[in-house]
């Protein structure tokens, strides 16, 4: 696809190439699926999906940022844990716990404006951190597989939150949480003027800050040095005298905090409620996709989160053409499948291209070519 072999490639291009291949293949398969369902309108629908996010100008872009906020953060959470050698499948649970904590404070506490939402965010983040810490401790102390532990924590978190809503903040009319007080709503700081009519608030700015902070932690600090060393090679880190157990706990706590932050930011918003009947939060699992597509890098999570949100927005408008927006989830899932396969695909492409080139050149001077 996107491979231009002859010249030595820019290292960045080489790094993101698998993701680009995955996206291209995913879109292609999406187009094929759309053609199967409705061939006449498939191209128009596909086109709408690609540009739909700009359908209503700045309003759509604002919404894209708003929808991207939680999945950038859960993507950051999963990616950060992965960089340090851990699979955090528990972003959904950490997020819901963070969300509930923020809602609880937002509904029941009485505080003045900036303090209220700041405390709600901080407590939500902390609650997420605790939800990540528990599987971290289990892993560090008795080597409980963190995949299993975090999945279980997802369900414990989900049911615990349902119970807590019913016990504390239930709006009996529609069996969901009460509206948070206006002092606890995230401000917009003028962003709503730039993107008029959109749902945007400062959540996206907080998410951007989180991306920068995590990037610095991973690449510039001794903490990141230790955490990555543990992730790359646990035995080697033990040999180096690094406390790998402590690192597992720290890493899972930070991952949990990021997901908790996602929950707090998303639900400190007028019109967003936790319900007593909803399942696991989808943004938690989107985080896995975002991290995969973003190659577990903080900047990658930012780009992948925006992309996913962008294409979802477009998918929404596809309904104009008799397509259900679920088709977007098919495409996104395909992209994720391909990003898992991307490295394989990349080598296959490279081999094919090399073969073709060799055939072309075979005749003149074989020995020089092969050297």
């Amino acid at each position, binding site marked *: 696809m996107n491979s231009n072999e002859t010249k030595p490639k820019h290292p960045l291009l080489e790094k993101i190439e698998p993701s680009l291949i995955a996206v291209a293949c995913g879109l292609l398969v999406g187009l094929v699926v759309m053609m199967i369902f409705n061939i006449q309108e498939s191209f128009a629908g596909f086109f709408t999906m690609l540009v739909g996010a700009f359908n209503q100008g700045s309003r759509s872009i604002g919404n894209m940022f708003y929808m991207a906020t939680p999945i950038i953060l859960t993507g950051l959470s999963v990616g950060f844990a992965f960089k340090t050698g851990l699979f955090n499948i528990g972003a959904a649970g950490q997020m819901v716990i963070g969300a509930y904590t923020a809602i609880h404070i937002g509904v029941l506490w009485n505080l003045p404006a900036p303090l209220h939402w700041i405390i709600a965010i901080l407590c939500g983040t902390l609650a997420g951190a605790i939800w990540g810490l528990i599987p971290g401790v289990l892993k560090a102390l008795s080597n409980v597989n963190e995949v299993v532990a975090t999945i279980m924590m997802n369900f414990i978190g989900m049911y615990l939150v349902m119970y807590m809503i019913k016990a504390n903040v239930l709006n009996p009319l529609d069996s969901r949480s009460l509206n948070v007080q206006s002092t606890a709503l995230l401000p917009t700081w003028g962003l709503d003027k730039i993107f008029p009519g959109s749902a945007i608030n400062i959540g996206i700015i907080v998410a951007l800050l989180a991306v920068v902070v995590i990037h610095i932690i991973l690449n510039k600090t*001794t903490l990141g040095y230790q955490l990555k060393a543990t992730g790359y090679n646990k035995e080697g880190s*033990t040999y180096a*005298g*690094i406390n790998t157990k402590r690192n597992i706990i720290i890493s899972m706590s930070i991952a949990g905090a990021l997901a908790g932050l996602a929950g707090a930011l998303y639900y400190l918003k007028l019109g967003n409620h936790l319900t007593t009947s909803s399942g696991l939060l989808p943004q938690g699992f989107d985080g896995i996709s975002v991290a995969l597509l973003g190659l577990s890098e903080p900047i990658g999570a930012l780009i992948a989160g925006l992309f996913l949100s962008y294409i979802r927005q477009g998918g929404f408008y596809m309904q104009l053409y008799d397509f259900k927006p679920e088709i977007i989830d098919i495409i996104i899932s395909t992209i994720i499948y391909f990003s898992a396969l991307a490295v394989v695909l990349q080598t296959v492409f490279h081999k094919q291209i090399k073969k073709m080139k060799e055939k072309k050149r075979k005749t003149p001077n074989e020995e020089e070519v*092969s050297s």
Partner: protein
Amino acid sequence: MDYIIEMNNICKQFGTLKANDDVTIQVKKGEIHALLGENGAGKSTLMSVLFGLYQPDSGEILIKGEKVLINNPNDANKLGIGMVHQHFKLVEAFTALENIVLGAEDTKYGFLTLDKAREKVLELSKLYKLEVKPDELISDISVGMQQRVEILKMLYRDAEILIFDEPTAVLTPQEIEELMNIIRKFAKEGKSIILITHKLNEIKAVADRCTVLRKGKYIGTVEVSKTSTEKMAEMMVGRKVSFTVDKKPKTPGDVILKVENLTVLNKAKNKELVKHATFEVRAGEIVGLAGIEGNGQTELVHAITGLRPFSEGSIAISGVDVTKDTVRDKYEKGLGHIPEDRQKHGLILDYNLAENLILQSYYLPEFQKHGFLKFDNIYIHAQNLIERFDIRSASGAKSSARSMSGGNQQKAIIAREISRDPKLLIAVQPTRGLDVGAIEYIHKQIIRQRDEDKGVFMVSLELDEIMDVSDRILVMYEGEIVAELDPKQTTINELGLYMSGSKGGKHNEQQ
């Protein structure tokens, strides 16, 4: 031309690496033909081509004068080619007999019948004095016997061409002697043998002719009886090699490492892997620990360095008790550790060279401030070590450790450990898998540490290394330190007797 095997102009390339570049080897019927070369010279690749594991890019193979295509090991078996791999290919949970027949089983109505096979195996085992216990599980028999099972596997399939890949690496000197006799007997019976090795004395002892490879290229074939060891070494390395290690006598000083009554249990806690080890290492001496692989040396070192818990005993470095210390505490008290497995323990392969050179010291004020790494200092530090220790890599301090050659990875580890100026240096198989040039260099570095009054504890499976470098030798057998010897007053033979448990140790006293 009565060659039984001819491999002519074989080329095999992996990526950009030419593992075999126009290599030719011709083996006569009934001869013992040695294949000599350093690690990475392409010996194993060439034999894998002959055994059907790889397909050559170009070149031809002739067996008994006929051109053949060998697509897989089954084809090789049909042509009468058998191979004993360096790492045995045996099923641990099967008995010796089951392993021998595996892939060539007799069946009756679809059921396995072993009676005929047992007869044949026992007959072969008697004929060649290859003692095996056919009904013991592989996991319960010694390494020497496992090798005999592998040999019987070839004979059971009526192999005429026998390939041995570094067969002596896991054996004691006495077992090596036995194996050499068996190999001689095979040759006398008219079987043809290819012996892959980098040990010159073994070639001198048994081989008729010797083909030398270097960096994938064919260097030449010589008559062993008419060629000196020095000449063969020169062909192998490409330059003159000194075999002697320069070492001035030195009187040991204070005790640097004191290990008392150290016992290490296995994971299930029902077997002692190290049994009450007690010894000392003094300043200015190199203590060598000899032993056959898997007799508790690794566990002993891991316990001392803190990579593994132990159940009993105490450890002191320079008189300070470090029994309960963490790995980092031990480093701070003067431990340097060149680990056995440089890729698993010694390096973080995904980090670059500079990052690897601060693995134990990244948290010191020299390399960090308020938790932020000082990259300038880190790269200056790396540059210093690269120059001082001549570490070569594609892009200097920024090269990823993974991309470096084994020898340079090892140099990087040695540079890091020595530059931390430890009082005690523990070096485990410091030259494993390295070429002769790198080995010389590493021995020099280790001896220099001793000359600077450091205590050095060296574990090695290579007896020559133990004999040449050590000032004092300890021998370990089944987790027990069974002997303490002076290299000037002992022989490789005596060492071998201790290593195989036939001399010294508690179990012999009791008898």
